């Protein structure tokens, strides 16, 4: 028996975020520091842990249904190329516009639940990851809060999101190197811009060698 069905699952969730995923997400947030940003988390789910291997940055101009649906479909395909047959859209990340706003948005809960419903058929669960802006004041703080759902409501996880401390500031060097970050909004304005952001994966790989 691989993973426990949602209704019986009582284990608390552990979310971890890989180097490329974290760097892309932070670059996205930094690039549009004056906006609310969001994106999809790509990776694999175990019984009680979710490993986020990559992200698809989505929007900085507001999130509405049609483009979100298009992005979600394509991201699901992309997930297979990232993590093989087990790869999936496993969650949603977001960061509020206001530096002190720590609320879980209705939108995040809705999108998280939609992702969760899609995963439930295979006994897997979704997570929602929030970039808590105010915590970014501390250079060693990854600044992330994870949420899990019991089917009706989303609550903060007990365990912190695992991020390698050595990579929490990588994104700053990436931006200093003028490395671009493309989100779905940018892609929609010009389809030549690639939301898979392979340049970030390559840069991180070189950097960490």
């Amino acid at each position: 028996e691989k993973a426990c069905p949602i209704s019986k699952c009582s284990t608390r969730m552990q979310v971890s975020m890989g180097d490329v995923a974290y760097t892309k997400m932070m670059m996205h947030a930094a690039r549009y520091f004056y906006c609310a940003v969001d994106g999809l988390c790509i990776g694999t789910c175990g019984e009680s842990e979710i490993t986020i291997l990559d992200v698809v940055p989505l929007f900085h101009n507001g999130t509405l249904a049609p483009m979100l649906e298009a992005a979600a479909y394509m991201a699901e395909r992309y997930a297979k190329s990232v993590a093989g047959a087990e790869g999936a859209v496993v969650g949603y990340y977001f960061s509020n516009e206001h530096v002190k706003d720590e609320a879980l948005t209705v939108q995040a809960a809705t999108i998280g639940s939609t992702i969760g419903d899609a995963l439930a058929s295979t006994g897997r669960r979704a997570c929602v990851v929030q970039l808590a802006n105010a915590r970014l004041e501390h250079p060693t703080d990854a600044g992330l809060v994870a949420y899990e759902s019991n089917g009706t409501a989303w609550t903060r996880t007990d365990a912190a999101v695992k991020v390698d401390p050595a990579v929490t500031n990588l994104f700053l060097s990436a931006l200093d190197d003028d490395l671009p970050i493309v989100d779905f909004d940018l892609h929609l304005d010009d389809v030549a811009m690639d939301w898979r952001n392979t340049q970030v994966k390559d840069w991180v790989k070189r950097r960490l060698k």
Partner: protein
Amino acid sequence: PGSALGETGDMARVEAERQGPEAMAAVLKQLRTSRVREPETVVRLGRVAMGKPGRLGDEVWTVREQTLVAALDVEERALAAECEGAILARFSEEGARASRLKGLGLEAAGRFEEASKTYEKMLEANGANAAALKREIGILKGRRDMQGAVEKLTAYVAKYQSDRSAWQELAETYSAAGLFSQAIFCYEELVLFEPTAARYHCRLGELHYTESAGLPNAKKLDALLKARKYFAHCLNLAGPRDKASRPALGLLLAASAIGAIKPDDELNVALGAQAAAKLKTLYKTAAPNDLVTAAVAPFVAANTPPYH
């Protein structure tokens, strides 16, 4: 391209840094007119350009103002204070423009009470000062009083009906709060002002489509039909060299959703097919091949008619 100015912009900035203050001022001017938010670039260039006021003439004041605002954006407090000091020394604090900059500095520091007083004074001198009214809304947003911000914004657009950015700000505030019909109302006003602005039609399409999800079946079709209409119209308005996929994607999805309710509607099938064709051409000519094959083509195929 990482910079919002695009690759040419990045090169322009590097080149300008090499050439000197006049070239930098030209790039700064381009940033002002394009209204792109690139505070790091502005601070980098402005800092140097301001240091040679003789080479800029009167433009140095616009550059100082622009650099001040950018410095506030990236928390370069010393630089912001330096700009503010220079501006206030030259232009009286009683003047509206200088006052507003002073207020901005206070807002950035979270000193909302004092900022509020600054704007009150501006309004006492001139009750119709739009900049001061907008800053008051800014303060409400800064304090996270969204209800208050919406109220003040609504009052503002009632007074300044042709202020498009205000209407759009109100629309997006409503949209972010999930109040789609109110957002739609605002964008309808914008369409009245600018009937050929494709982006407003596209946004209306997106809002109607989003709204449709929460509606009972009878009203759902209505909303989807409106969405489809707006996306189609946006495509009509878009130029032949337009690389935007938004309206085509929207039209494809709207037609697909309508197709789930009315699979044999000929007009709908035609529109869906048109959207699919448009997307295929667009992606084939412009996007990376493997992206198309892996992700885009399956998506388009899944939503192309027939809708059975």
